[in-house]
Structures are given as C-alpha cells and as structure tokens.
C-alpha cells in the first residue's frame, strides 16, 4: 500500500514535469518559459523526492534524499534568479518572443 502511494506520487511528479515541458514548447516568450521551468524544478522535483522517501522507508537513504531535497530547495532558486536577472539586465523585453 505504501509502495503504491510512492509510485502514485512519482507518477504525479512525472505528469507535472511532462506538462512543464509542454509549457516550454507552448510558450514563446523567454520570461514565461522561465516561470514554467521554475515550476518543473520545484513541484516536480519535490513530489518525486517525496515519492522516493516513501519508497525507501525509514533508512539512511531516505534521510539522504531529504537532505538533498533541502539543499536543492535552498540553492535551486539561485539558478532561476541568475538567468532571469541576466536577461532582464541585458535589456531583453517582455513578450519579445511571443506570437503576434
């Protein structure tokens, strides 16, 4: 039963990621794409890690996964922030790449 819950969470995470990838292709503007890629990173990653923790049970592996999740949650926004900031400072306009 617990395994089933874990596999369900992993499947939900993969669906989240797949929808994120669809969004990346569907949206044409750089800034909307970066907002969607941030979604894949956080929601997908968090859900898949929770699934892995449940699958691992109470073990060192589960605790390591939790530590990795914590570290990624702290450092992950930095990359998104750095890319968005550099585009903004370079003068990349909003909706520059959108369809007419």
């Amino acid at each position, binding site marked *: 039963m617990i395994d089933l819950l874990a596999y369900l969470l992993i499947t939900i995470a993969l669906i989240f990621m797949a*929808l994120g990838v669809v969004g990346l292709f569907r949206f044409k*503007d750089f800034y909307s794409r970066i907002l969607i890629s941030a*979604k894949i990173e*956080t*929601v997908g990653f968090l859900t898949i890690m929770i699934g892995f923790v449940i699958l691992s049970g109470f073990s060192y592996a589960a605790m390591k996964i939790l530590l990795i999740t914590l570290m990624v949650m702290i450092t992950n926004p930095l990359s998104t922030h750095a890319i968005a900031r550099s585009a903004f400072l370079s003068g990349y306009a909003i909706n520059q790449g959108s369809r007419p």
Partner: protein
Amino acid sequence: MKKMVRTLVLILIFTGFWLILNESLAFSQILTGLFFSAVALLFTNRYLLEDDYLGAYGIKPKVLFHYAVYLFVQIYRSGFSAIIKIIKGEDAVKIIEYETCISNELGICLLANAITLTPGTVTISKNGRLLQILAFQDENTFTDITEGKSCSPYEMILRRIDS
C-alpha cells in the same frame, strides 16, 4: 551562556548531517562529526562571514517551520494554477516592483527565495527592501508599489524573525 547553547545546537545539527552522509552511528563517527562541525562553524565565523554565524542566520525554529509549511502549500497551489495556464496557453507576464515590510536581511532573502520557489513568480532583483518580481499577469499575491502597500502572508510569517 545563551550563545554557547545555540552554538552547541548548531554543532549537533551539523553532526546529524555528518552521520546521515556517512550512514553510521559509530562512536568514532560521532566524534569526527562533532570535531568537523565545530571546525566548520569556527572557520565560517572567522573567514566567511562579516557578521557572527548566529547573528547572520539566527531564525526561530517555530518561524522556520511555519515558513516551510506555508511555502510547501503555496508551491502546490501555484503549481496547479500554472498547469491551467499551460493548458489555456496564457503566457502574459509582468514585472512588479514590490517593497517588502521586512527589515531583516535574512528575512528578505528568505522571501526572495520563497517567491522564486513558488511557481509563477521569480525574483529578478533585490535592492534593499525593494524587490522586482517577474510574475504571470493575473498574479496578485504581491501588489505593485504603485497600487498601494499590503504585506503578503509570507512577510507576516517572516516578520517574526525580528521579534
């Protein structure tokens, strides 16, 4: 005395990380963990930070827990609304200039981190208390400074760092 207790708590937390990474509860590992935790803290205080570690990263566990739970809920709420946007193809974005009610530097950084972690918003820049946020057009958690001031729920939690 209070500072010593806080330092000891930090050393114990870091030792916990060490034991998890080494997958062992052996006495030698505990001793090694305690040693390296103390050395890491000492070096951080002496060479990496201008301020004291406890002064720079002092946050109450209760505030941190409240922040983490609220962030967790918001990540999923915004995640689902982002899916609807993908399906509908709503890709209009805007940049909001937002002045935070938080005065603590750590609190502002945690707020910027939470904004970027929440799907649909990314912090572009931070200048003192002024944040520039990239968001979808219908995002209304953070109001532009031109539209009047209001504290977001994140700030209500993080303001308690100062108290």
